């Protein structure tokens, strides 16, 4: 026992009494605070194992008496977020879509919500910037050229019923005949020239004009302004759904492609569809209620594009 209190000269520390081949062990205990912290962590671990999921079992870990899980935390946060949004959703649901722009705050909320839904459901075809893909014929939603109308009501209708969608009887649908089987090669060239000339490209010919008047004007109008009621695209502007090259235009006349879009009424709730309409409308080409009728009305009556433009100008001035 006397060894126990022997002191190591150089360090002033006592020996513990263990020795091996002349090497002895000094008694330098752990600092108390460290030791107690260590004990506290052990105690904490014991408590933790009881309270929280801890032991891995065959299919899942032990549940813990608190019943906590990160999944239920997430579910709570999600439902809290849903609750927070519920008021806005109800207001949007209760507001007629034509009245939406009048409520700037609600319109802003709808645009934000629509932007989120667009990223989930629409970007696959229309692109992240809503600019579409010309090579596939997915329309650009940013411009001011609308096949079926660009007011909030028109866009909402398109979203609900789709285009050439078998899921709705009221879907927007039209079919252009394939003139490749009707026209000769020369006739096709002549019509193509005339169509291009409508927007100021190249020269037309009497044959082309005649063929256009007989076969195309019924839907696309004599001046090429198109007809939104039929979904006939305007041919007298700078925007081409399937390309503006002569070969592309000619191809479309001969064997037209017809794009399709599913209606979303079976997948999305009415509020989301409303918000999507608001978002698409806000992309810069949105038309306000009344625009379409005022634009279409003179187009049916008049022959010249200049007059149409003049009529539009009057309409604009009248409003502003």
């Amino acid at each position, binding site marked *: 026992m006397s060894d126990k209190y022997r*002191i190591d000269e150089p360090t002033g520390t006592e020996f513990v009494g263990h020795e091996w081949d002349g090497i002895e062990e000094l008694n330098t205990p752990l600092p108390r605070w460290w030791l107690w912290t260590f004990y506290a962590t052990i105690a904490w671990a014991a408590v933790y194992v009881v309270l929280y999921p801890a032991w891995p079992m065959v299919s899942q870990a032990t549940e813990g008496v608190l019943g906590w899980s990160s999944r239920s935390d997430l579910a709570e946060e999600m439902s809290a977020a849903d609750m927070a949004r519920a008021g806005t959703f109800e207001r949007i649901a209760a507001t007629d879509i034509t009245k939406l722009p009048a409520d700037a705050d609600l319109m802003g909320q709808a*645009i934000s919500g629509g932007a989120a839904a667009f990223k989930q459901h629409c970007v696959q075809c229309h*692109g992240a*910037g809503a600019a579409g893909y010309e090579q596939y014929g997915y329309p650009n939603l940013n411009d001011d050229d609308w096949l079926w109308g660009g007011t909030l009501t028109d866009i909402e209708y398109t979203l609900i019923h789709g285009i050439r969608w078998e899921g709705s009887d009221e879907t927007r649908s039209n079919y252009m005949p394939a003139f490749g089987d009707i026209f000769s090669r020369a006739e096709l060239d002549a019509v193509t020239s005339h169509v291009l000339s409508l927007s100021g490209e190249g020269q037309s010919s009497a044959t082309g004009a005649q063929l256009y008047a007989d076969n195309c004007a019924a839907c696309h109008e004599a001046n090429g302004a198109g007809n939104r009621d039929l979904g006939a695209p305007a041919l007298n502007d*700078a*925007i081409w759904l399937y390309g503006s090259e002569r070969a592309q235009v000619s191809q479309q006349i001969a064997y037209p492609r017809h794009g399709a879009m599913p209606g979303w009424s079976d997948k999305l709730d009415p509020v989301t569809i409303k918000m999507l309409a608001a978002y698409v409308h806000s992309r*810069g080409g949105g*038309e306000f209620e009344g*625009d379409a009728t005022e634009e279409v009305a003179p187009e049916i009556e008049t022959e010249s594009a200049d007059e149409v433009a003049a009529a539009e100008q009057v309409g604009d001035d009248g409003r502003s």
Partner: protein
Amino acid sequence: MADPDELERPPQNGDATKRDWGAALPQVETDPIAARRLPHQPPPKLYEKRKAVHNKRIDGPFRRFKWLVMVVTLAIYYVTPWIRWDRGPYAPDQAVLIDLANRRFYMFDIEIWPHEFYFVAGMLIMAGIGLFLVTSAVGRAWCGYACPQTVWTDLFQHVDRLIDGDRNARIRLDKAPWGPAKAARRGAKWSIYLLISMLTGGAWILYFADAPTLFVDFFTLEADPVAYMTVAILTGTTFWLGGFMREQVCIYMCPWPRIQGAMLDEKSLIVTYKDWRGEKRGSLKKSLKNPDEYGDCVDCLQCVAVCPTGIDIREGQQIGCITCALCIDACDRVMAEVGRPRGLIDYATLEQCEAEAAGAPAQPAWKALVRPRTFIYFGIWGAIGLAMLFALGTRSHTDLTVSPDRNPPFMLMKDGSVRNSYTLRLRNMEARPREMEVSLAGLPEGSVMWTDRIGREDAAPSQTLTVPADETRVVRAYVVVPAGSDIDSFRFVLTSLDEQGESDSEETTFSGPGD
């Protein structure tokens, strides 16, 4: 005590080795306590147990000044959040408010946004240089009078005095064994500590929200959890630092005394014991008997008794001295009683001390303030302050930033014109809604713009928008340039349509099919 049986135990394995080098050592006593005190070299102790400071009550000019500073600083701390300041209906009416939730800092007529954090940085720099300035002029006056640690320690020491009595009573009580009387006194004292600590922590949160509302919410348990947490933490730290750590904060924890150690020089004002006058110290009786042998110091230890950090100033300048000057009060009082001139302990510079020791007359303390270093610090400090005031007075309350859409970069319209889309951020730093005009500069004739909230039929070369009070309004803007224009860039110009007529502009790109 050595046990003979154990000393003469039979040899065991390994004993030989032990004996070999153990033989050269001095005889080792086997008493466990004594063994630790043997004449081997013990490693130097790095830890010194704290000796409790029981400073004695003192009155005098410096003590009264300390009272005044304590009242003023505590009043500033507790009253400031309650001062109201009318900023109109769109901004809070609290004079000093750090509104973290809305990211605004209000100080009377000044409102600071997060992007103007350099004002706060400037104030911190001024505070830093201000400390240099104070140190250069009056030494550690910050430590001695105005530092929160000093003020609160002083407050807690007055509580000690109130509950336990003055120095001697407190020393007695400290040594007394625990009993009901001691427990009652300790309980009362710590309760008051806790109350002061809670008031300290409680007042802090009032700077971060509307004080009257938060005050009510706090007691009706409707305040944010972070408010309770902040109060709890600050109560804990005040209780611990003010009630128990006290001078150890100054001596061991605070970096400032160490920095000051490097900043003080022979021209700095410090609290000094004039040893050439005081030594050789001795009791009044002795010094009256041998006036030639003894100096003015009667070794009454009053300077030590009143010291809030428990040092002996007669040992000279030291890190524990916060220059609170209470020892000056104590010594002056004793000098008056024994009929000797005041100022045996006094504010003086080391240079003055040398001069006085050599026989020069004592100088008034203010002369120590006048020196180039002080003026240089004051110049830098003032220049930063003036620059900040200038920046504050001339800053624009209007700002515009523009980011062009990159997807898609441009849009071809029906008539062949080209449209670009931009996100505009219009900042209104006034506490009222303002009409602002956004216009286009450097675009060809016929170029127009509109926003996502109005139709294209309202497109015009400029748009007037209302920006809400004290907000940044984000607007999506569309700019259309007639077909055939070849431009790469232009400017958005923002002008406030009020008497201020502030404006800002930003150049941005315009993309087209040709790019």
